[in-house]
Structures are given as structure tokens and as C-alpha cells.
């Protein structure tokens, strides 16, 4: 109930400009429910990501958009048209498969031109279109190569070109960068984003890599066990996650139990067990005084210092552990009344001397509004 409410408030998309509309979709494989009442609206020209750990139903949802699986119940609309009963070859979408599915018996040119058969183009027009695509994917001299003479990154681009040449309204991409090594993946992320801006096609992008989703997307749907937990912009997902599950899936988060003490002009005063009272305006709607909630803060929003000063927004603890990661260090601080050590992330502005002495007293401090209030779920 609460989830629905927040989604309405947070969702910049109103129903009228939704280009893809997934309405209460369920999918069962036998008795196993792979998709559980998912409703998502995706806007025209959006770079939209489905983010979730392996097995949460991302591919299944994508395959329902492409028409390879049918929803057990619910409806999918694309460009205003209901999609039930429309076979894959009649849908205005194209898919880049996780395995790329390059046709091994055809050369690059014929792979890219594969979908043009029905358009009955002249040979010269067809060749021109293929050349244009080869330029777009930066493989102009690869037209005559066989599929087995290509690297992973090249195959991925050809799978893209093969879809884009048909000017689909929507491009579906199932973990297209998953098989590539880190460096190539980062390069392809940039290219993919630039490409999407150039062609202006709606992208629905599946990934289990939260960083990738944050970098690329206009909006992200965080999925877990077949449900969509939160649909939001990367910033809001990171800064104002709706519940503990989303908060801990994206980045690291420190959680504290608390109760609402008072509500004051758009913010809330929360009383916590270990870190005193915190004030923040990052609150869900319909908060009532006395309600028990979780408050959460990202490790980089805490400041660590070794000389204590009292006052508000400060708490004393003991340094448990420190991990040096080059540009930054991670610290774990135990605070009385807080069950888990608190994670702190700090940039190493000074040269580190490598003798972070364990168990010494330290002070944590934070700004107002650094905390976010979650429902107690």
C-alpha cells in the first residue's frame, strides 16, 4: 500500500506519456512465480534499466516485452497497443540477446541486413543502410568477416546494429556487456549511452551490475524475487531508497532503528538508540509521530575524526577495522547501542601512513539531511 503511494509521488512519468506500460504482470513457470505483480511505465526515448541479482526475473520480463514469453496475467502495452497475442516478429521491439545470437553461417553484412528482407529494398539501398550501420558501430571494414572471426565486443556491436537497422521503437538489451572484460565494458557503456542519445530509441537494459545501471540509466527499476521494489532515477534510488532491501542492494548503507519524535516543517526528528536524535527531510509521506522506522546513512556521508567535540550530529565510537583502498579508505566503527559496526568511507586526501591504530576512540559526525528515513520493513 505504502509502496504504491510513494511510487505515484516519485514517478515523473504520468500515465499519458508512458510509451511502454507493464500493468500488473504475473508470470508462472509451473508453480514457480518468476514475476510477481509488476507494474512499470517507461517513457519515450528513456534509457531504462532493470536491475536485480541473478534469478530475480529480469530476463523473463524482457522476454515478455519481446514476445517470447506470455504473461500469465496482466497486460503489456507498447505505444498504446496491447501486446497479448502479438508474436515476436510483429512487435515494434528488437532484442540484443545475452549470448548475442549472431547467425554463425552468415557474414557480418548478412547478419546486419537479416531483418531487411521484407522491406524489398534495392541492393544499393540495402548496402548503403548496412554501410551506415557498420560506420555507426565503428566496424566499417568488417562486413565480409564470418561470425567466428569476431571478438566478444565486436559481436555485441553487430547484434546492436542488426537490431538498430530496423529502427525499432524499443531496443531490449539483456546484460549485453556482461561477457566483456572490465575495460571494454566501461568503453562500451559510454558508447552505448552515446548511441542511445544519437538514435533516440527507448532502451530497456537488463543488468545485475548496480554501478552500470547508475551510470547509464535515466531511470532504474530495482527488482527482487520477481517484484519491482522501486522505480526511480539513479540519484533518488541512491539518496532516497524506499526500503532496506533497495538501500542495501545499491551501494552500502548503515541502518539504525528509531522512532519518530516530532514532525516539523517538511522534516522529521527521529530518536535512535545509539546515535541520538537525527533530523532529516528525506522522509516518506504519511509518517506519524511515535511510528517506529529505520534511518539510514551512506558511509561517505559520515565524517570520521580522532579529536572529539560534543554537540549535535556527533557520536563517539571505537575504530574496529580499517581497509585501505588507494583513493579511499573504509573504516568500521562500533558505537554503543548499535548492533552492527558503522561503515565509514573517506577519501585519502593526505598521504596515508598506514597505522590506523585499532580500538582507538573516534568521533562520527554528519550533516542535517544526510540521513534518510525508511519504513520499518
Amino acid at each position, binding site marked *: 500500500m505504502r509502496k504504491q503511494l510513494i511510487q505515484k509521488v516519485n514517478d515523473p512519468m504520468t500515465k499519458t506519456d508512458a510509451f511502454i506500460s507493464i500493468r500488473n504482470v504475473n508470470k508462472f513457470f509451473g508453480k514457480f512465480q518468476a514475476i510477481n505483480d509488476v507494474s512499470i511505465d517507461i517513457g519515450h526515448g528513456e534509457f531504462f534499466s532493470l536491475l536485480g541479482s541473478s534469478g530475480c526475473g529480469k530476463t523473463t520480463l524482457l522476454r515478455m516485452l519481446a514476445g517470447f514469453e506470455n504473461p500469465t496475467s496482466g497486460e503489456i502495452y507498447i505505444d498504446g497497443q496491447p501486446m497479448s497475442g502479438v508474436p515476436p516478429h510483429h512487435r515494434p521491439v528488437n*532484442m540484443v*540477446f545475452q549470448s548475442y545470437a549472431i547467425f*554463425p553461417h552468415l557474414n557480418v553484412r548478412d547478419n546486419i541486413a537479416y531483418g531487411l528482407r521484407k522491406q524489398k529494398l534495392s541492393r544499393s539501398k540495402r548496402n548503403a543502410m548496412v554501410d551506415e550501420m557498420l560506420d555507426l558501430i565503428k566496424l566499417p571494414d568488417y562486413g565480409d568477416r564470418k*561470425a567466428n572471426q569476431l571478438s566478444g565486443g565486436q559481436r555485441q556491436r553487430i547484434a546492436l546494429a542488426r537490431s538498430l537497422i530496423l529502427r525499432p521503437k524499443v531496443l531490449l538489451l539483456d546484460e549485453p556487456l556482461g561477457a566483456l572484460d572490465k575495460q571494454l565494458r566501461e568503453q562500451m557503456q559510454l558508447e552505448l549511452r552515446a548511441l542511445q542519445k544519437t538514435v533516440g530509441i527507448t532502451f530497456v537494459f537488463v543488468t545485475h551490475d548496480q554501478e552500470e545501471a547508475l551510470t547509464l540509466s535515466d531511470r532504474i527499476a530495482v527488482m527482487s524475487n520477481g517484484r519491482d521494489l522501486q522505480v526511480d532515477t539513479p540519484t533518488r534510488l541512491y539518496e532516497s531508497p524506499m526500503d532496506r532491501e533497495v538501500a542495501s542492494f545499491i551501494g552500502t548503507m548503515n541502518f539504525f532503528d528509531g522512532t519518530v519524535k516530532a514532525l516539523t516543517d517538511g522534516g522529521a526528528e527521529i530518536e535512535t538508540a545509539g546515535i541520538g536524535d537525527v533530523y532529516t527531510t528525506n522522509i516518506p509521506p504519511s509518517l506519524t509521530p511515535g511510528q517506529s522506522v529505520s534511518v539510514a546513512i551512506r558511509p561517505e556521508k559520515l565524517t570520521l575524526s580522532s579529536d572529539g567535540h560534543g554537540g549535535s550530529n556527533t557520536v563517539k565510537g571505537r575504530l574496529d577495522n580499517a581497509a585501505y583502498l588507494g583513493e579511499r579508505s573504509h573504516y568500521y566503527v562500533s558505537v554503543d547501542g548499535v548492533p552492527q559496526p558503522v561503515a565509514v568511507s573517506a577519501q585519502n586526501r593526505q598521504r596515508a601512513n598506514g597505522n590506523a591504530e585499532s580500538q582507538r576512540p573516534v568521533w562520527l559526525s554528519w550533516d542535517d539531511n544526510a540521513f534518510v528515513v525508511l519504513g520499518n520493513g
Partner: protein
Amino acid sequence: MSGHSYIKRPNRPLQIYAALFLVVLYVPVLFLPLFSFNTSIYVKFPLTGFTFQWYIELMDREPVWAALMNSLRVGVTTSLISTGFGIFAAKAITRYRLPGKGPLVGFIMLPLVVPGIIFGVALLILISRMGIPLSLYTVTIGHVIVCLPFAIATMIPRFEGFDPSIEEASADLGENAWWTFWRITFPMVFPGILASLLLTFTVSFDEFIMAFFLSGTDPTLPMYIWSQLRFPKEFPSILALASIILVVSFAMVFLGQWINRDAQATDSKSE
């Protein structure tokens, strides 16, 4: 470093076993061509002399040519029908989640292990009950049943060897099932189809028991050979004929295997 992994290192006893196995299997068969070039009409050592006489005699026999034509017709028809069925059966077996798939596959493969005489008698009873006269057509029916498992077994690795999402990609790019079959599936399994055609043709061409039960007045080549065994005088020519069949069969089966050598490797090769 030997350069061999544990599982791949050479295994002497296994190699000896394999060699012995091949000798026991094929040496008796090699006596056929050996004696077919011998001048004596008796099959016994010592050899008396070298001759092409029996082969030349064979060429002059009208019934041999007739039987050969019968066998070719039955073989070609059988291979086309059983390979055609085999394509779709193998696709169904590998692509769809069929309930009771295991038993079904076992059932299709049954003709490989059920004695031909049982199938022959059963079909004979069925066909005569239905009032169908015995002819080369009834032989063909029997041969299709015998050959279907060979066709399916040849095609299955071809289908397993490629990623189903390749067919899905074709559908995604706008082609319906019919065009997807002709533009993707067919070319990708084509070597398997050729291999299956060659193999099923050979099986049909060499088959005796079904032909024995189900043929009418037109004999196939193996039937002809069998009918001539009664005449000792004819024996060397029969040896010559058998030798030819042997060589051609070997050649066809090996050709089929060679064409289909990269089955199941299509994916890994293209990586």
C-alpha cells in the same frame, strides 16, 4: 610437462583393446573381397589365382541390375522420408519441453534394439490384415521405421549444437517460423541432413530382414543375394556383389560422418 591433461593422456591398454576390437569386427568381413578376386569357385585356402571374372559376370546379369534399381528406389525414398521426419522429431526433442520426453525418445529409438524379425512379422501381419499387397512400397514403410532412429540420432547433436536464441533472434528480427526455418535452422543443420540422408540410404540399401518379410515379387539387392546363395556356382559373383556393396556402404557412412564432423561444435567454434 607431458602436455596432456589427466583425462587425455594416452592409455596403452585402451589402445590395444581398440585395435583388437576393430580386427575382430572387420577381418571376417575382409574375406569377402579377398575371395571375390580368387579364380576358384570354392571359398577355401590356398588362393588359386587373381581374376576380375566374377565382377565381369555380374555386369551381364539382368536380375542384378533390376534388384539394384529396386534397392536404389527404396533407399532414396526411405532416406528422404526418414530424414524429413527426423528433422522435425529432432527439433521437437531438443527444442520443446515435452512432457514424457524421455520415454518418447526411448520409444522412437526402439527399432535399434528390437530384433528385425519381430518388427518384420508384426508389420507383415498388420499390412496383410489391412489388405495392402506386398510391394516395394511396403518394404519402404518397413525401412522408414528402421531408419528413423538413425536419422534422429544424427540430427539431434546438430540441434543441440546451436543456441535456441539464434532462432529467437530471427523471430525478433521479423521472420515467422517458416522463414526462420529456411533462413536459419535449415542451413545450420544442413550437414546433419546430408549425413542423415547418406546414413539412412545405406541402412535401407543393406537391410535384409524387413525386405524379406515385406517385399512382393520385386527383390531388393540383399534379397537377390540371399536367393542366389543356394547355387554354389553363383557364389563367387555374389561375393563380388557383396564386396561392392560393402565398399560403397563404408564410403557413404564415412562421407556422412565427415560432413557432419563439427556437429555440436558450431557454438564453441564460433566463440
